[in-house]
Each structure stands twice: as structure tokens, then as C-alpha cells.
């Protein structure tokens, strides 16, 4: 990583193995169910936070994940970063198995995927100066303390916090935007190749948000990183993402290239999500709420398609069978949706006809 101070980073870069065509990250079938207390053993209810999540990130790509609160975005983030052990599935990084059930991720391999959290009171250790916080990771990998501290100062400069003023500060002496820069610096200190960002700008004021986003874009371009960017803010996701994934109740319901998704969403949930964005134009008043009802209980998701209870075009088929994520016809490559109305010949009244087949 060239930070252009004439100083080499003490941690070595993580080498590229698979070449440009190899996907950087492939997550298959990740699952996380939480057991709730209550009832006798064996009858406890289960929250299906994430169900059969499969996602891939190409090298240099930014994948955005959107969805309502409680749809499992944060849990998905932690599963993919390998910090929360998944109940099932596997994670492949640059062609090698990063994690499989029962496997422990080594310290060295951990460096490759880092996370940036939402700015909160607990994102930085209140008892450590930010230099100490930044030096912690490298020191854990054997970098001598003095070198790690010098490296920390370089990182601070790189994220726009002049070390002369900021190095010995405690988190409480920083503003929200400054703390997020430190969070970002902490993540890139390990010289990762993939960054998972969980609502990194949601707690910031709009003006600060823009600056931090710009920093993120710059980091990505100069360091050759890939991002998984999670947010509930559609505008932000559109700005920064190459591809976008829409989650609902623990599952992926649609994914596509960013511009494609935002201009032509196919899944009824995605459509409703975008329609609920208030417009700045007072003539475009939303008179009817696009989404009906409350989000259903993640403990007892509806049978079949989980969205059917709020879906304007739901049919009996939707209750019977859970739709699988499949390529959408007449859409650019890579646009997939989990909706029977998009699958030719599914039996849904709005499904397109199977070309050439008898009805």
C-alpha cells in the first residue's frame, strides 16, 4: 500500500492468487438462526435472522446491501466477515476456503476481510488513544510497538486527520466524522482486500457523510479494495455501489447492477422500497403507503415467499412454494429476483410466457 510518505507499511500486502476473473469472495448458503429463551427446552422459538444467503463479490467491486431494519443485513455482514460463526454453508476467499463449518480462521487469514461499523459509543475503545487503537492490530501480528505507532500516524494522515493534532486524542475528543475516519483507518491498517461496512455513514450529518463517502471512494480506488456496503439509505447505496442486493427477512430477494436495479426493479418488495422514498418534488405526493402492514415476525415467517403477506400481487402459489433467486428474463445480465411473477412458466398469473412452449 503506497501511502506516499516514503514509508513502507510494516504489514505485508495480501497477495492476489486467483487473478482478475476469480471472485474475491463467494459466500454460499450462510445461515444464522438465534434461539430465544422461553418455553421448555426443545420448544424454544427461533429467529431466522439469515437464511441460505449466497453472495459473491468480484475483485474491485462494491456490493451494496439494502433492506429494512431487522432484515438481517447486520447479521449477514458479520457472517461474511467471519466474525459470527454461521450455522451452515461456506465462505471462499480468492479461490481458497476461508471458512467452513468447524473451521477456525487463522489470524493471518483474518486480515483479508475487515469491518467498518456504524459510529457509536462503542466503536472505539474509550480507554485507548486512537494511536493505540490503530497500533493494536499490527502489534498483534508481530510489528514492534514503535513501528506500529509510526504506522498508526501514517494512517491517520491518510484518512485526513493530521497526526500532530489527533494522534494522542481519545475517542471522546473526536467528532462523529472524525471517529469514522479512525474506524476506517483501523480497518485498512490490516491491509485487507475486502471491507465490510455496516451502516458506516448512517449516524453522521449529511455534510460529514459526504466527506466520509468521498474518503471511502478514494480508499477503494487507491488501495484496490472491494466493499460490501450495507445501508438503509438508498441514495448512498446507489452512489457507491456497483451491484446492489436487496434483503428481506433474512433472504436475498433481488440483486442487480446498481443502475439497473434502481431504474427497473423487478421484485415487488424492491419496487415498494423505492416507491417509499419521498420525492423532493411536492407534486409527487405519495397518497397510498406503498407497503401494507407491519413487517412480519422473523420468528414465524410466512410459508413460501416471505413477502407474500405484504405483496400486492401475491397468489396461492406464493404461499405454497418459496421462490428461488433466478435470472430475470429481459433484463441485463446478472439481474436476479426471487419472485414467481418473474419466473417463466411458474404458474403465477403475471409470469412471462415460456417462449415456444405450450401453455
Amino acid at each position, binding site marked *: 500500500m503506497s501511502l506516499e510518505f516514503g514509508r513502507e507499511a510494516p504489514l505485508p500486502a495480501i497477495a492476489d492468487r486467483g487473478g482478475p476473473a476469480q471472485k474475491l469472495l463467494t459466500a454460499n448458503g450462510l445461515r444464522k438462526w438465534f434461539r430465544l429463551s*422461553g418455553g*421448555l427446552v426443545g420448544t424454544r422459538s427461533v429467529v431466522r435472522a439469515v437464511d441460505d444467503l449466497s453472495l459473491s463479490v468480484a475483485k474491485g467491486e462494491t456490493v451494496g446491501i439494502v433492506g429494512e431494519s431487522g432484515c438481517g443485513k447486520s447479521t449477514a455482514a458479520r457472517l461474511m466477515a467471519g466474525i459470527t460463526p454461521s450455522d451452515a454453508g461456506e465462505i471462499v476467499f480468492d479461490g481458497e476456503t476461508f471458512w467452513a463449518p468447524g473451521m477456525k480462521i487463522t489470524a493471518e487469514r483474518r486480515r483479508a476481510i475487515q469491518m467498518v461499523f456504524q459510529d457509536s459509543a462503542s466503536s472505539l475503545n474509550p480507554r485507548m488513544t486512537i494511536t493505540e487503537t490503530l497500533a493494536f492490530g499490527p502489534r498483534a501480528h508481530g510489528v514492534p510497538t514503535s513501528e506500529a505507532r509510526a504506522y498508526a500516524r501514517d494512517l491517520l494522515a491518510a484518512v485526513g486527520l493530521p497526526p500532530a493534532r489527533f494522534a494522542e486524542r481519545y475517542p471522546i475528543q473526536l467528532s462523529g466524522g472524525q471517529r469514522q475516519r479512525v474506524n476506517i483507518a483501523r480497518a485498512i491498517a490490516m491491509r485487507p482486500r475486502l471491507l465490510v461496512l455496516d451502516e458506516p455513514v448512517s449516524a453522521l450529518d449529511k455534510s460529514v457523510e459526504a466527506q466520509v463517502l468521498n474518503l471511502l471512494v478514494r480508499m477503494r480506488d487507491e488501495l484496490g479494495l472491494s466493499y460490501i456496503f450495507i445501508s438503509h439509505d438508498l441514495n448512498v447505496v446507489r452512489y457507491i455501489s456497483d451491484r446492489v442486493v436487496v434483503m428481506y427477512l433474512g433472504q436475498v430477494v433481488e440483486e442487480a447492477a446498481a443502475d439497473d436495479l434502481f431504474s427497473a426493479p423487478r421484485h415487488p418488495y424492491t419496487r415498494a422500497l423505492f416507491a417509499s422514498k419521498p420525492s423532493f418534488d411536492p407534486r409527487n405526493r405519495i397518497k397510498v403507503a406503498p407497503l401494507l402492514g407491519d413487517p412480519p415476525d422473523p420468528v414465524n415467517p410466512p410459508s413460501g415467499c416471505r413477502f407474500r403477506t405484504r405483496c400486492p400481487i401475491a397468489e396461492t402459489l406464493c404461499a405454497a412454494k418459496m421462490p428461488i433467486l433466478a435470472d430475470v428474463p429481459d433484463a441485463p445480465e446478472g439481474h436476479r429476483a426471487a419472485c414467481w411473477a418473474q419466473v417463466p412458466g411458474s404458474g403465477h398469473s403475471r409470469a412471462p410466457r415460456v417462449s415456444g412452449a405450450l401453455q
Partner: protein
Amino acid sequence: MLFYVLRRVLYAVPIAIGVTFIVFSLVHIAPGDPISALLPNEATQEMVEQARREFGLDKPLPVQYGVWLASAATGNLGTSIGSGRPVSEEVAGAVWNTVILAISAGLVACVAGFILGMVAGLWRDRPVDHMVSLFTISGVSLPHYWLAILLVIVFAVNLNWLPPLGIGPDNSDGWRPDWPHLRHLILPTIATAAIPMAVIARTMRASVVDVLDQEFVTTLRAKGLLPRRVLWHVIRNALPTTLAVMGLQLGNMLGGSVLVETVFAWPGTGFLLASAIFQRDLPLLQGTMLVLSMFFVILNLVVDLIQSWTDPRIRRA
């Protein structure tokens, strides 16, 4: 809700078993071999052999535990070295006396503590509150056995209003609800109730202050609800925590009874325990401990369930 009750009861079982195991091991952590701990010094060889068979002392530890537990369950807690009588008999005689003391002290502590705490909370930062705070701070740091001695000094020795010792006049062996016996009950009750009363008052005050500070009280007042109705709401919300503390203190009173009963020569289980210790009478020590701790485990369970019954938040969990 039923699930919660069942779960709680089931959870208490391994705890109870663990408790019995600890009580069982008391004899074995005593210095010297268990035989000398279980039998008087002048035991004959025959008695030693019999004890060895009865307690299974030559068998491995888990078996001994099983034997002991089984006989305890059937009411056989061994024989007291000091008196030669069965331990269960000794304990049965003493339990009732301790229960009386515990009930009377519990009533005083709970009622007085509740009222004091509520008054202090409602009239926060006024002189009443400061006085109660003073009382609670000192009450919590008070050694109850010292308080007992002070009470005897003031009321029995100096003023000669109340008797200094015993459960009743003329070496009475049991408590009866008559005036002479009541006089004997007063000082032990105060000594036992003082600390719990202070703790309950402090908790109650904190709960009341907490509730009063919450926004919904301001809303109630803004709605024009009569002060008495507001009070009712305050009490209802402050109750669960205070009930929990009361239950805890009841347990502490059981424990502290060892010392207070010694000072007053009150023939309860605490006094029994103390004399068992003094005489190195380990079977009696073990038996008394078993009964007391089982009682405490059940008490904890009941308190837990009552608390969850009054606090709807827990019920739904």
C-alpha cells in the same frame, strides 16, 4: 407462563443438589478423619464399626454422598454427638422458634422499610429524606450482633424494661402467643430486622425516585390524575424490585439468625448451629445446615416466581 414456572423449578433442582453436595462435604473438609468428626470421643469400637457401615465410610465418596442423601431424604440426619439425640429431632424442635423470629422480624422489616422508603422517596431531599438516608446508611453497616448487645444493654440492663435472654419466662422452651413471650420476642426482632429494614428502605426509596422521574408520571400528573392515584401507580411500579430485595433479605435474616440467636440464647436453628460449632458436633452442624439451606433454596424459588408474577415484563419473556 406455566413454562416459565416449570423452567424455574427445574432449574432449582440441580442447584438444590449442588447445595446438598456442599453440605455433605462439610464433614469431609474438617481436619482429621470423618469418623472422629461423626462420633463422640468415647465411642466404642462397636459404635465405630456400626457408623462405618451405616455411613458407608469405607466406600468411595459418591456412594457415601448417595447414602447420606438417601437417609436425609427419609428424615434420618444422623445423631448429635453432643446430646445423643437424633439430629432431626433437635432441628425439628428448633425450627419453629426460628420461624417465629423470622416472621416477626420479616414483617417489621418489610412494613417499616416499605413505608420509610416510600416516604423518603416521595418527599425527596426534604428533612425526612435525609433522616431516612442517615438511618439506612448506618443500618446497612451495623453489625447485628452488636446491635443485639446494645439493645440488651439499653433495654434490659439499664432500663430493665425487657428481658435480655431466652424465648420465654422461666426457661420456657417454646413460644406461645402471650404477653410474657411477646416481651422476649421484641429485642431479637429489632436486632434481626434492623439491617434488612435499612436495605429495604433504601431500595424502596430508589425505586420510588426512579418511577417518579419517569416521564409517564409527569404525563399522569399533567392529565390531572389525583395524587392518590399517582401514588398507586408509583407503588405498582416500584413493587417488583422491592419484593425481590425483601425476599433476599428474608434469606439474610435466616443466615444472620446464627449470631442474633446466640446473643439472646433464642433456641432456634441458628443457636443450634452455633452450639454445634462450639462443640464440634458435625452431624448436628450438617443436619441443621441442610435444613436451613434447603429452606433458602425454596425461598429463593418462591421469591423469584412472585417477582415474575408481579412484573409483567418478566412474565412474557
